[in-house]
């Protein structure tokens, strides 16, 4: 029976706490009286995932079974989550492959000929062949790609987008034309965190800049508290309005959502999923071997080693059918795995940031992504109220190198060099720079033909941090590249001790300190 997550009170006998630090780790001694939030242990996976998928398709929530929806001569489109999920990428076979093969089996049985697959990547970078093969398996790739039936969503091709009108609040709804014009749109989700899935799948994953800007903006993000809790998230409210509008326009969606357990790291990194005092001799040996050898490894090599990690994630649930009914079950399942109850807020929140975030799979975690992972994602891993009090300080640990992947993140480089050199205020950035980046023909060219994130994407990263920036009294980065950290508008510190001293200038003496011991992921249910 996996143990639930829990909150440890640090006393003098507590061993040092593991902090992620990019492609490495730090062992830090937290002051007595601090709290450490540990994630729940990985739940038991489904025994027979393929059979579970079949059963989910045959017994959906709120609609007829999938075979009953499939008719000869119909137009079927299957959209699936892109390379940003799950994290780290999972071992083969990927859930998407399992689900889509099951769907296609039923489509074949029903005699459906017109089937297309679309990678729902919104404004993310296009996936490479290797990434598509990894997500879908060679069988699907070889069957569909050569015929042009496996495509990647292209939000900048007007001929492939369809404007479906506006919601009652005037939000443009523009999504992939093929998806909108299909008799049935099957969307295959991997719901790594509570934010994923629901109406957001189609309304965001298959949308254009014109549509996305209605919820990917500073105001929305400041009113999403947090976006891991769909009922208090303006991001989700907007997506839900759009989703309802899409449904009202007659687009029939069959949603398939899957949840994973938190079995995030392979055997040789098993210590990452254990509590420090439960490390066996083997775990300690592995920690020492890994961290010592990483110290001597050139950063590039370390990066490629970490990026090659394939997570042993296992599926804990799969549900299919009508979007909202499915998503309610999914969210419950995500919460079951990830929720940890925490009493009260804290003055200082510390966190170690890992080497990966949704936008640097097989790539470089640049400073903007570090910012977004810390202030965007980890800060928002709460339900109820933020872990850190208003005016509190966030301390995060990451090397934050001044490094970019020019193929994947060209607009990030310009954003960092030109926009952040001028201002770090999200509202000012949005007003002054967003449009010119979003419409820059070069970024559009690279997004459409290369493997580049859209020109506007770094702005979204910054907006993701807007809630945290508004809420916090200060942000300190431990062990980061000083110039890069300053450019981000944050404060650099060389050690955690220094950072805690600096934080006391903001929050006062004898602060309460809480450490978020993640990943594996958790959501703090702050009472």
């Amino acid at each position, binding site marked *: 029976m996996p143990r639930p997550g829990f909150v440890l009170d640090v006393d003098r006998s507590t061993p040092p706490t593991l902090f992620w630090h990019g492609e490495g780790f730090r062992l830090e001694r937290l002051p007595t009286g601090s709290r450490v939030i540990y994630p729940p242990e990985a739940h038991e996976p489904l025994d027979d*995932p*393929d059979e579970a998928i079949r059963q989910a398709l045959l017994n959906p929530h709120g609609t007829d079974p999938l075979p009953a929806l499939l008719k000869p001569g119909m137009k079927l489109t299957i959209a699936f989550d892109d390379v940003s999920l799950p994290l780290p990428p999972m071992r*083969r*076979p990927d859930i998407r*492959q399992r689900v889509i093969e099951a769907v*296609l*089996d039923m489509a*074949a*049985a*029903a*005699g459906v*000929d017109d*089937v297309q697959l679309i990678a729902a990547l919104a404004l993310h970078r296009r996936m490479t062949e290797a990434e598509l093969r990894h997500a879908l*398996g*060679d*069988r*699907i790739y*070889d*069957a*569909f790609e*050569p015929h042009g039936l496996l495509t990647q969503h292209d939000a900048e091709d007007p001929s492939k987008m369809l404007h479906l009108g506006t919601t009652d609040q005037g939000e443009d709804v523009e999504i992939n034309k093929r998806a909108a014009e299909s008799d049935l749109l099957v969307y295959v989700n991997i719901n790594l965190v509570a934010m994923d899935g629901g109406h957001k799948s189609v309304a965001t994953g298959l949308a254009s800049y014109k549509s996305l800007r209605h919820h990917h903006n500073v105001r929305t993000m400041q009113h999403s508290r947090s976006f891991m809790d769909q009922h208090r998230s303006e991001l989700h409210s907007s997506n839900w309005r759009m989703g309802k509008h899409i449904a009202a326009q007659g687009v029939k969606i069959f949603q398939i959502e899957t949840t994973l357990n938190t079995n995030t790291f392979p055997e040789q990194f098993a210590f990452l999923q254990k509590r420090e005092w439960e490390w066996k001799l083997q775990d300690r040996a592995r920690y020492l071997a890994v961290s010592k050898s990483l110290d001597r490894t050139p950063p590039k090599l370390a990066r490629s080693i970490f990026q090659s990690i394939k997570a042993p994630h296992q599926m804990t649930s799969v549900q299919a059918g009508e979007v909202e009914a499915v998503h309610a079950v999914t969210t419950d399942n995500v919460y079951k795995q990830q929720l940890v109850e925490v009493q009260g807020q804290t003055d200082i929140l510390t966190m170690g940031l890992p080497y990966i975030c949704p936008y640097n799979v097989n790539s470089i975690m640049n400073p903007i992504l570090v910012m977004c992972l810390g202030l965007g994602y980890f800060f928002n891993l709460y339900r109820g109220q933020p872990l850190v009090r208003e005016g509190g300080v966030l301390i995060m640990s990451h090397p934050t190198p001044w490094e970019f992947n020019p193929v994947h993140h060209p607009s990030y480089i310009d954003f960092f060099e030109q926009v952040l050199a001028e201002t770090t205020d999200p509202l000012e950035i949005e007003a002054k720079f967003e449009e010119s980046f979003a419409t820059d023909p070069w970024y559009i060219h690279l997004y459409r033909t290369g493997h580049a994130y859209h020109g506007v994407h770094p702005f979204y990263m910054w907006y993701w941090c807007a809630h945290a920036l508004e809420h916090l009294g200060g942000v300190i980065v431990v062990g980061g590249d000083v110039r890069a950290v300053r450019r981000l508008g944050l404060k650099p510190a060389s050690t955690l001790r220094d950072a805690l001293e600096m934080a006391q200038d903001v929050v006062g003496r004898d602060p309460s300190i809480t450490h978020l011991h993640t990943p594996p992921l958790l959501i703090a249910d702050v009472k």
Partner: protein
Amino acid sequence: MRLPIPVRPRFPLGPATWPGGVERPPAKKRTGVDYDTSWARRYPVRMARALLLDGVTKPVVQALASPTIDGLDRIQDLPAPVIFAANHASHLDTPLLLTSLPPRFRHRAVVVAAADYFFDKRWKAAFNAFSIGAVPMERTKVNRRSAIEAGKLIEDGWSLVIFPEGGRSPLGWAQEFKGGAAYLAIRTGVPVVPVHIEGTRRVLKKGAKRLTPSHTNLTFGRALRPLEGEDSRQMAVRIEQAVAELADEQAHDWWTARRRAASGATASITGPDAGAWRRSWALGEHKRGPKRDRWPA
């Protein structure tokens, strides 16, 4: 010069002659189905076989057949033991299939081999038992005893490699699958993994004297389990059908194969029901003409 006639030493120096009125009991056969292979599954022999498979057989197979292996993901989560059932066109099939198996199967697998061919002489029997872990079985109708033996092996955690055609196909098209694999699956409840092997005929045809290095394909299918109330005949048909679908998948693509399978249009692996020349013609091997020098380069 006259050769000396060998003189048999007389009893009691030599063996006594059998009295004419007494019936001779049948001699204890120690070849064929009766060959005892259990020595080949002892630990030291298994180690030696593992070394042979990984150190010698695998590189040789790689060099000769350069196989592309598909569908490993379909057997990734499958618990051992299982029964692998493949089509059979060449002696190369066995080493190719064995070396293509994931290690957890490879080093705990026995190959069910025709007793009359592989176990007819003691040295042959010993060689086959050692090198590929062969166990003898009748080609046509499995007798009770060998079924029990095989069942025991499965219970001990050994996976079986069976070629249900009962022998290599002589003309390129597969032969109808016999019920042995299905029978064992129903008896023991372990799943059958259909396997399709393509191209080994190009390397080593039945009756060929020379090895011709070429490219081969090996595709694992999704495991089949006996259905409620299914007999071994019906399941054998299903296994054959599954291998035919894999053949289709290999020749075209998965989605085409699935659609044909769903509409019952998968081509049989035993070839069209037609005259001999049309069967050969449909095989498509005539397309390969003599090698020409390529120019330029």
